[in-house]
């Protein structure tokens, strides 16, 4: 299914749950650690034992405030409430969450494109345990029985509810990437979607382009990767548009994304939604961080991705969108220091984008990097040689001079290239004829042969210029 985006507009709002990087659970001292033998991270609170009481983890609150400030939210007085529903991996059969008064409200996040996406709230709550469905191929409806592990129960979660400001699957992906970068930057989350420490539910609706009212939305669950999210959004939007086109109505419901089958299926309709009977949890008192605490957290926040993108764009003169990848790789500091040391900003960015995907790249000595770029722009190294030297710098930590010398790199002048090029034209008459007939691809063949003959020392651009000169 695909959607005619000239006719339809997709409206997407995301709810992201992130597990917070604390040592212990939200309301007890049982450890918060992924994996482990089942039911080893347990204490009376985690098990929901009679008489157990919750005491709030200060660090979880601190992390929640960090995220709230990073998302430009108002950090406010908040209250924990109980959300009541029965489920075997919910040990108390209620979840302690925040309902009327979340700790963070009304913020926004800036995408690399510069677009701002509204954040309705980001509140604290506890995670559930994990159920494994045994038999029936692991499918919930065919299972013979289920097993419950409570290691995850009570792990602190921050639920970040975005406003329905996103309009394409790509924008939704950019939002989640950006959010993940922010969460990692402030130390709130490890951002691992595959381990479930970042979980996304999508609210999707469609409307005719130009309409001002939102359509009826469906919520999609079980999204385990950015790619799956993109596919699920596109599938669901098309499904809804088809319904509307054929005169049917979209029914508000929760749907399950099946990544193997590439479609969403009905989980439950909102009509039979549970009545959660929220009420303030009498076992807990309100949190009111107050200006002092909030300002202390604000002062300790690192520079956030969007600010880093703006800084990089300003100081290199690049387009804002081009800075996203470099910042995401954490290479912006390296680039800025290299530029300060006199390196050409354009070459610096190009290398950061194309030649520094290696995780160790952020550890490069900026001075050495600047020196290498200078060698390239001075014509002492060809582009190919520069790339090779850069890779070796990342690998060994050696300086560019030493590496270039070790390989005997020096750009050849066109005078010493001429005999080599002429010899190749003579030896490959058929290819030369095709080149003269205008087959530009054959140029690559000749350049490659020259590189081979010169062990990469030739400047590719000079070879192309010489070929063109010979063709006349």
């Amino acid at each position: 299914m695909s959607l005619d985006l000239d006719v339809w507009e997709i409206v997407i709002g995301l709810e992201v749950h992130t597990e917070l990087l604390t040592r212990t659970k939200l309301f007890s001292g049982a450890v918060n650690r992924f994996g482990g033998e089942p039911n080893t991270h347990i204490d009376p609170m985690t098990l929901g034992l009679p008489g157990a009481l919750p005491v709030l983890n200060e660090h979880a609150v601190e992390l929640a405030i960090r995220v709230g400030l990073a998302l430009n939210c108002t950090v406010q007085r908040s209250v924990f409430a109980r959300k009541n529903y029965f489920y075997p991996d919910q040990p108390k059969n209620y979840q302690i969450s925040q309902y009327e008064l979340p700790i963070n409200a009304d913020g926004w996040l800036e995408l690399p494109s510069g677009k701002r996406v509204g954040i309705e709230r980001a509140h604290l709550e506890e995670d559930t345990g994990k159920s494994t469905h045994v038999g029936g191929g692991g499918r919930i409806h065919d299972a013979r029985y289920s097993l419950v592990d409570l290691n995850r129960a009570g792990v602190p979660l921050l639920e970040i509810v975005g406003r329905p400001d996103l309009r394409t699957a790509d924008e939704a992906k950019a939002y989640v990437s950006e959010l993940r970068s922010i969460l990692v930057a402030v130390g709130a989350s490890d951002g691992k979607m595959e381990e479930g420490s970042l979980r996304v539910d999508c609210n999707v609706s469609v409307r005719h382009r130009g309409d001002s009212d939102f359509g009826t939305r469906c919520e999609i669950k079980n999204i385990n990767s950015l790619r799956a999210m993109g596919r699920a959004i596109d599938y669901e939007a098309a499904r809804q548009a088809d319904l509307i086109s054929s005169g049917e109505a979209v029914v508000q419901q929760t749907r399950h994304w099946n990544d193997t089958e590439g479609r969403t299926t009905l989980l439950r309709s909102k009509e039979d939604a549970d009545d959660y009977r929220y009420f303030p949890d009498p076992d807990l008192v309100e949190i009111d961080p107050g200006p002092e605490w909030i300002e202390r957290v604000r002062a300790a926040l690192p520079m956030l991705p969007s600010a880093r993108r703006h800084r990089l764009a300003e100081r290199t003169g690049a387009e804002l969108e081009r800075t996203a990848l470099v910042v995401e790789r954490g290479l912006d500091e390296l680039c800025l220091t290299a530029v300060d040391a006199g390196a050409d900003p354009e070459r610096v960015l190009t290398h950061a984008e194309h030649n520094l995907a290696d995780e160790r790249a952020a550890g490069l000595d900026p001075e050495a990097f600047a020196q290498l770029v200078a060698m390239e722009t001075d014509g002492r190294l060809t582009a190919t040689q520069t790339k090779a030297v850069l890779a070796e710098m990342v690998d060994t930590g050696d300086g560019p001079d030493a590496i270039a010398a070790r390989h005997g790199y020096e750009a050849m002048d066109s005078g010493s290239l001429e005999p080599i090029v002429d010899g190749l034209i003579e030896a490959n008459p058929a290819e030369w004829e095709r080149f003269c007939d205008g087959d530009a691809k054959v140029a690559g063949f000749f350049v490659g042969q020259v590189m081979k003959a010169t062990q990469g020392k030739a400047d590719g651009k000079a070879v192309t210029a010489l070929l063109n000169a010979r063709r006349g």
Partner: protein
Amino acid sequence: MRTAVDIAAGVRAGELSALEVLDEHLERVVLREAEIHAFNHLTEEAARAAATGLDRRVAAGEDPGPLAGVPVALKDNLCTEGVPTTCSSRILEGWIPPYTATVVERLVAAGAVPVGKTNLDEFAMGSSTENSAFGPTRNPHDVTRVPGGSSGGSAAAVAAGFAPVSLGSDTGGSIRQPAALCGVVGVKPTYGTVSRLGLVAFGSSLDQIGPFSATVADAALVLEVIGGHDPGDSTSLPGSFPSVSEHLDDGVSGLRVGIVTEMMGDGIAADVTARVRAAADALAAAGATVEEVSVRAVTYGLSAYYLVAPAEASSNLARYDGVRYGVRVEAATAGEMMEATRTAGFGDEVKRRIMLGTYALSAGYYDAFYGKALKVRTLIRRDFDAAYERFDVLLSPTSPTTAFPFGDKTADPMAMYLNDVCTIPTNLAGHPAMSVPFGVGDDGLPVGVQVLAPALGEVVMFRTAAVLEGSVR
């Protein structure tokens, strides 16, 4: 019978053997427990071992603490590691907690000797102990009558001399009302002064643990041990419990005492109100000034309570689902298993309150019921506070009647709930109150007078109680 104060003093001085003290009490258990049924579970062996250990420590020159050698009975909704804790419910039958309630840890650390777990109305819901899944407790003063509830077992244990002191929990009167009906002292302290960690929750914003004892001084001694801040309970107030014992002899001269008008009229037996007036006279004779005072909002207490407590209970009792501990009734799906387990495991009163609370919290009714009830709490607190601007303590009956016969009120829940009309308002306000025995009614059965005080007003409350106790001796 010996008081806790005397036992602790004797044992600490090496003049009394903790083991002998224990045996005196266990002998009375042997004689009358079959008739009274105060206990769900006796821990004689562990108690003997503990008492022997205490005697050895004293002999070695150690001081085991302010409750050295004092036998204590514990309501069976206090978690005790290694000892069954059932809440008198089928659903927790056989459950043995892997941890111990803070109050019990503190008692034991102070040298007390737990002798067993006492019977209660299932999950502390009731006023007669008739709602126990394991059969009712009988009133030691008249075994054809109820001991009150929900802490009926703890009240009866002290009244029968099975232990000099015991612990109960009070959500709407569950310590004070049975104390009154059994003729012993019972205290509900200020909310937040005694840790709830390890108390099986009923109405979390109302529940407080407190002592039963034969004397006012014993209750003070126990409270000073179990009270004070606990970092394991988020609603625990900072600081230590006010030092009450040292003020017991301060008297009431110059104190202003108010008799709560709303608790002296309709629905309260005349012989009971007569005892309250006699108590007021005794206080006046001791130098207090006594007046009647109206606390209007307390008339809404029962309605607010029967929305707030069941609402919290409906959520607190959701965890009993047969998945992780306790009893399970198997069924084809997990959802059906939970339903079958809960249907078989809970008694009628518990079901009634769970359903009432679920209703009060459900969509469309929250504002009219639960939300309104929380506002009524504010009104009650406000009216009490206004009264406490003019009075140091207030006085009322604890229970509208003396102990009633078994079966009298079981068919009509509302009639049973009216037992708590005088005790409920203090729970809603979070204030302290205690019941002090003050003579008998026309039927010769004990009457309790309730002394109410503002938040953290335990010292003045105990001073008043001590004068009342002295005047009936």
